[in-house]
């Protein structure tokens, strides 16, 4: 059976994913999104558009939130990657943002939710007490078609309060 270059011309890429060291084997131009999903079976990262518009494939690379559909895997050599699967401390201990999404109705169909949760975490790390304008701007790279965003805004506000109470 014939194979495309993507199956044949593979390189090894070393990186850390959700705290574990990994050696990924893939074509250097393979999208990080596909490698995470297919090689590591981390399917929480979703594809919505494949062109960096919708944010469903958001992951953290060295603390920066990026669209993994636009990142060739060769670029993550030595990088620390965090996906939605690396956000909750454990099955019982969800991140404050995840809890807030459940409580406020921030997730409907759920397909944008992993990316949206990461975008909200990124926003709160940069701006711990965001204004409404901060929230609107901070999430504008992530599209949601179900919620009209209102319940997501409420979840971000709720997560701030939750974190503030714990601090």
């Amino acid at each position, binding site marked *: *059976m*014939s*194979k*495309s*270059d*993507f*199956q044949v011309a593979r390189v090894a890429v070393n990186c850390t994913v959700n705290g574990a060291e990994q050696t990924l084997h893939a074509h250097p131009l393979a999208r990080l999104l596909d490698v995470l*999903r297919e090689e590591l079976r*981390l*399917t*929480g*990262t*979703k*594809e*919505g*558009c*494949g*062109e960096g*518009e*919708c944010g*469903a494939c958001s992951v953290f690379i060295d603390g920066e939130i990026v669209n993994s559909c636009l990142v060739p895997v060769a670029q993550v050599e030595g990088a620390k990657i965090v*996906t*939605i*699967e690396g*956000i*909750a401390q454990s099955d019982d201990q*969800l991140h404050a943002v*995840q809890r807030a*999404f*459940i*409580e*406020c*109705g921030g*997730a*409907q*169909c*759920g*397909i*944008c*939710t*992993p990316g949206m*949760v990461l975008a909200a975490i990124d926003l709160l790390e940069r701006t711990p007490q965001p204004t409404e304008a901060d*929230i*609107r*701007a901070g*999430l*504008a790279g*992530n*599209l*949601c*078609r*179900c*919620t*009209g*965003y*209102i*319940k*997501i*805004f409420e979840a971000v506000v709720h997560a701030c309060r939750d974190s503030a109470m714990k601090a």
Partner: protein
Amino acid sequence: MPEQPVVGRPVPRKEGRDKVTGRARYIDDLNFPGMLYGTTVRSPVARGRIREIIFGDGIPWDEFVIVTARDVPGENCVALILFDQPYLAGEQVNHAEEPVVLLAHPDKHLLEEARRAVRLDIEPLPAVFSLDESLAQKEIIWGEDNVFKSFLVDKGNVDAAWESADFIIEGEYRTGAQEQLYIENNGVIAVADAGEGVTVWGSMQCPYYVHKALMKLFDLPETKIRVVQVATGGGFGGKEEYPSMIAGHAALLAWKAGKPVKIVYDRAEDMAATTKRHPSLTRHRTAVTRDGKLLAMEIDFTVDGGAYATLSAVVLSRGTIHAAGPYLCPNVRVKSRAVATNVPPHGAFRGFGAPQSIFALERQMNKVARTLGLSPEEFRRRNFIRAGETTATGQVIHEEADLAGLLERAFELSDYREKQERFAVENETSRTKRGIGFASFMHGAGFTGSGEKYLESVVGAEADTGGRVRILAASTEIGQGTNTIFAQIAAEALRLDYDQIDIAQPDTANVPNSGPTVASRTCMIVGKLVESAALGLKQTLVQSGFLADDYTPEEFRAACGRYVEKFGALKSFSQYKQPPDINWDDEKYQGDAYGAYAWAVYVAEVSVDTLTYEAHVEDFVAVQEVGRVIHPVLAAGQIEGGVAQGIGFALYENVVWQAGRMVNNQMTNYIIPTSADIPPIRVYFDERTTTTTTSGAATSGAKGIGELPMDGPAPAIMNAIEHAIGVSINHAPLMPESLMRMMGGELVEV
């Protein structure tokens, strides 16, 4: 026993935890051993005769599974209403993107190279690209007159009314196509062989639609077809009928390959090839008296169905019945038709024809008010339908239908009057003009007319030895909260904890057909069946002597244990029976069109930048009466999400067509509202009314909610823009370029 009633409480969404942790498995997250990837070779031509399929050089074609129309084991048509749409075009194509060849291979990159290497030699035929061309019969492309379906609603005597009118006002209104743009594209995985039959897993709204379609495609009995819905990333109607197509394609490939086949579209293919909202043209002629009473409404409504009939007849039906809105008028004639064009078939999208005809009506109502010298609200107030009065189809409204009350509430909450006056003053001097406007409307819940009677939906409930109750229904969770509200309804019926109720995965091998997940019917119609199926469990336990009428959850558990031990299983099924007082005449299109209506008044505040010609929604108030609210957070989420899609429909979402193809089929240039574009959306449910619906229709007093919020935003926004700048906008979407032309601006070359 639960301390608070579980219905009405914002319990956590059943699958919420899986969704926020990334654990929820959607179709593209699943892989089967030995699975191939499938793809679709589509027509680049809108209409033509297929001369030859040319498999280009440089591809090891013997490794590929190749399926054409000749490989179809059963009938080559998608079974829906009419059987006119083929799975694969054989001799002729009738729209661009029409499927002609299917390919499968284990390597998806090689598969894409192969797809590009197939060339379709098609002799072009003259094509029809718009509803105007179709109406003008520029070319006959379907049947004898390009008309898929037409309706006539006739109440009173419209012809006799014109003479006694003080004013007759005419208007013409258009709406464009709109892409559902669920964030998860269409996708399925199929396994198939002659012995075992066909099984499909996929992203879908209506497993039994797919089931029916595959039976015909493979000429197999119902026991040989199994359809399973997996977590679905949004639908909005876009996964109502289309999954039958993609499921058939994957199954045809799997049938020939003898291996599982996955087809998942990318965004460009999903946008270009799958269904969209029907474009529409509505003409109004309205007769009124000097004191502002409606005398006659003549409405001519046309929708563009695309190349095949698909669901256009029922979309047209809903649009037709909603065309005269929530107003009392003694003489109404609505003539409507769905016409064929050579574009990909238009299909279901939230609202299903009603947003189109309501857009026209609510713009026309403002125009009539202006002619009369009345405010838009005063004119409507004089004509709102009330309990005991009849709609255009002659349905007597038994509900309280307090539209005047909803209007007043919406005005208070939005500071309508104060803003109206203030903006008029401020707009004199400001570059940005502000305006405020509203729309009043209703939306019927459930299938139209006798639809529910024919569906005869069934829901099951079963209990295990530990007293856990499982609801068996084909109604799908697509984000709107089916799993959660069903569990609430069952928990309340049985007086159990919400957590004690599970919802079975929709799998045609395990759940009965509770009908499609469409038409705002899940909560109202299917919810009622969930309630009675759950109560059936209790009745069985009581009748068999294992349970007293009054019981604790512990006693219920113990009773289930004893019953299952003795009889093997505890199950109960409930089937929809149409109440005898619902009467509908399919021939005359008269009678009780819907078992219940949701009523609403929406207010939009806009700003228009007179330099950039951008319109923006600044504030939005949505007041509605939907009966009893089962889950306040989910219900508000439905309204907010629908309003956001309505804002997109009005101001952002513009499908650009060239020779029958969508050319902006990317999220980069088909723009949906982002978090930066959405105003505060303030949602209010009016629960003052004790809901009296046409009997037996509503569960726990709940009415349909899903589609309602799509109807009001676009006309409310255009009414607000007219208030801001004094320019009458009679089409949607309104793009800055067209607003510039309407405001007399000119393009300046720089």
